[in-house]
C-alpha cells in the first residue's frame, strides 16, 4: 500500500502548492498596497469626494477611443482589403486580354488599357497603404500626435487651442488605429484567401458570392478578437493625448496628483478604472477565442500575438 501514500503525498503537495500560490499572489498585491499606503496614507475623504470626476475623465477616454476606433474601422477595412489582394503581373493582364480576344474570335488583341489603369491604380493604393502602415507602426504615437497638432497649429492658427488639440488628438488616434486595424483586416482576409476562394469558385459561386458566403464569415470570426484587443490597446493609447493637454483619465489623474499631492489616491483610482475597463474585456476575448476557435484557423498565431498592445 505504499502507492496509496504516494498518491496522498501528491495530493498534499498540490494543496500546498495552491495554498502557497494564493498566499504569494494575494500577499504580493497586499504588500504592494500596504507599502504605498503606509508611506502616503490613504485619504478616503478625497476619494469619496473626487471619484466621480475620475469616472468622468474615464468617460472622455472612452469617448475619444470609441470615435477614433469606429472611423478607424472604415480606414482599416479599406486598406486591409486593398492590401490583401494580390498584385496582378502585367504579363497576366496581357495573356487574359488575349484569351478574351480568342474567345470572341477577334484576330487582333485590343490593348487592355482599362485593365492596366485599374490594376495600376490598385497597385498604387496598395503601396500607399503599405507606406501608411509602416509609418504608423514605425513611429511613436506621441510623435504622430504632435505632428498632426503642429500641422493644425500652422494651417489653422485661429482655432481655439482646446478645439485644436481635440481635433488633432482625434485625427492622430484615428490614423493610428486605422493603420493597426488594416493589419488585422489584411491578416484576416489573407488567412481565408488561399484555397478557399478557389474551392468556392469551383462550386460555381460568383466572386461576390464567394466573398459574401465564404470569406467574410471566416474573416469576421478571425478578426473580432484582435479588433477587440485593438480597442483595449487604443484605450490605453489615448492616455498619450496628455502631450497636447487633453485631460482624459491619465492627464486628469496626473494633474490631481500634482495639484492636491494625492499621488497614491490618484494612482489607485486611475489604475483601478483602467483595469476595470481592460481586464474583464480581454478575459472575455481570451475565453471567446478559446471556445469559438475553429481548429486550425486563427490569425493570432500567425501574426504577432500583440494582444491588447496595438497602438503607442
Amino acid at each position: 500500500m505504499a502507492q496509496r501514500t504516494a498518491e496522498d503525498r501528491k495530493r498534499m503537495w498540490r494543496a500546498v502548492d495552491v495554498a502557497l500560490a494564493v498566499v504569494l499572489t494575494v500577499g504580493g498585491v497586499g504588500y504592494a498596497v500596504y507599502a504605498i499606503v503606509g508611506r502616503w496614507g490613504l485619504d478616503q475623504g478625497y476619494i469619496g469626494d473626487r471619484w466621480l470626476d475620475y469616472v468622468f475623465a474615464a468617460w472622455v477616454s472612452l469617448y475619444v477611443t470609441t470615435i477614433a476606433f469606429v472611423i478607424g474601422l472604415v480606414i482599416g477595412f479599406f486598406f486591409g482589403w486593398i492590401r490583401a489582394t494580390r498584385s496582378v503581373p502585367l504579363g497576366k493582364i496581357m495573356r487574359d486580354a488575349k484569351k478574351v480576344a480568342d474567345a470572341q474570335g477577334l484576330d487582333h488583341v485590343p490593348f487592355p488599357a482599362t485593365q492596366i489603369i485599374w490594376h495600376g491604380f490598385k497597385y498604387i493604393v496598395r503601396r500607399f497603404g503599405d507606406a501608411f502602415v509602416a509609418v504608423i507602426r514605425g513611429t511613436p504615437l506621441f510623435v504622430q500626435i504632435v505632428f498632426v497638432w503642429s500641422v493644425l497649429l500652422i494651417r489653422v492658427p485661429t482655432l481655439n487651442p482646446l478645439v485644436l488639440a481635440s481635433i488633432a488628438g482625434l485625427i492622430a488616434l484615428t490614423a493610428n488605429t486605422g493603420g493597426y486595424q488594416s493589419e488585422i483586416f489584411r491578416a484576416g482576409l489573407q488567412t481565408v484567401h488561399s484555397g478557399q476562394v478557389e474551392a468556392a469558385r469551383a462550386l460555381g459561386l460568383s466572386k461576390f458570392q464567394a466573398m459574401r458566403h465564404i470569406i467574410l464569415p471566416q474573416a469576421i470570426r478571425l478578426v473580432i478578437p484582435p479588433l477587440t484587443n485593438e480597442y483595449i490597446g487604443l484605450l490605453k493609447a489615448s492616455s498619450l493625448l496628455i502631450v497636447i493637454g487633453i485631460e482624459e483619465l491619465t492627464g486628469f489623474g496626473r494633474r490631481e496628483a500634482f495639484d492636491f499631492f494625492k499621488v497614491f489616491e490618484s494612482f489607485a483610482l486611475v489604475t483601478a478604472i483602467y483595469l476595470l475597463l481592460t481586464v474583464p474585456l480581454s478575459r472575455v476575448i481570451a475565453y471567446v477565442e478559446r471556445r469559438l476557435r475553429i481548429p486550425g484557423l486563427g490569425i493570432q498565431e500567425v501574426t504577432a500575438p500583440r494582444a491588447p498592445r496595438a497602438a503607442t
Partner: protein
Amino acid sequence: MATEAATGQTVSRPGIVSLGSVVRVAETIVGAVLLILILQWVLEFEIADPRLWSIYWRPFTDGIVGSLGYIALILPVSVLMGFFLGWARISRFRVLAWPVATYVDFFRGVPPLVIVIFASLIGPSLMPERFQSRTLGLTLAALALAFHSAAYQAEIFRAGFQSVHRGQLEAAQALGLKPLQAMRHVVLPQAFRLSLPPLGNELAVLIKDTSLLSAIGAIDIFGLSQDVQQQLIFTPGSDLRWLFIIWTAVALVYFVMTYAMTTILAYLERRVRVRGLETMSI
C-alpha cells in the same frame, strides 16, 4: 521560401543576406525619401534648412544618444524578465504561475504612461535612503517600462513554449534526458525560434515606448525636441514650419530604430530557421 519548403526538396540554406531582403531595404529607403519629398511639398518646408539645424543639431544628437541609453537599459532587462516570467507562467507549480498571471494582467491592463508617471512619483519614496538621487524617479520609471514590456514578452514566450509539441518533450525524456536538459536542448531552441517574430514587434513597440519617459523629464529625442518646439513657439517671429522639420526628423529616427530592431530579429530568425519549417508569414 515557402514554395521551396512545399516542394520538400533539399535546398541550400537561404543566404543570410538574401536578394529579397536587400530589395525590401531598398524599397523602404526609396519609400521614405519619397514620403519626405511629398511632405515637404505639401507642408512647404525644407528638411535641410540650416537655420533650424544650427539650433536643433545639438538637442537632436543628444536626444538620440539619450534614447539609445534608455533602450540599452530597458531592453535587456525586459527580455530577461519576460523570458523567465513566460517560463514561470507555464509551470505546473501554481506558486509560480499564479503570481505571474496577476503580474501580467496588471501590467497589460494599465497604460504604460500611467505606469511611467506614477513609478516616478511613488517609486522613490519606497526606496531606501542610500539610493536616493535626482535621477532615481527616472530610473525607476525606465525600469517600470521594462516591467511593462516584460509582461507582454512573457505572453510571447509562453506562446512559444506552448507551441512546442508535447511529443517533443516525451521523446527527449524517452532518450533519458533530464528535465532541464530536455528544456535546454529540445524545448528552448524551438520555443525561441517561434518567439522571435512577435518578439521583434514587441521590441519595436518598446523602443517607441521609451518616448513616454519624456513625460517625466527624460533627456531623450522626443523630450528634447519638445523643448525646442516650445522655444520656437514662444520666440516671436520664428518660422513655425520648422516644427515640421523637427517632427519629421524625430519620426525618421524612431522609424530607423524600430526598423533596425525588426530587421535584426528577422536576421536572427533566418539564422535559426529550419528548412521545411518556415514560420508562416502572411
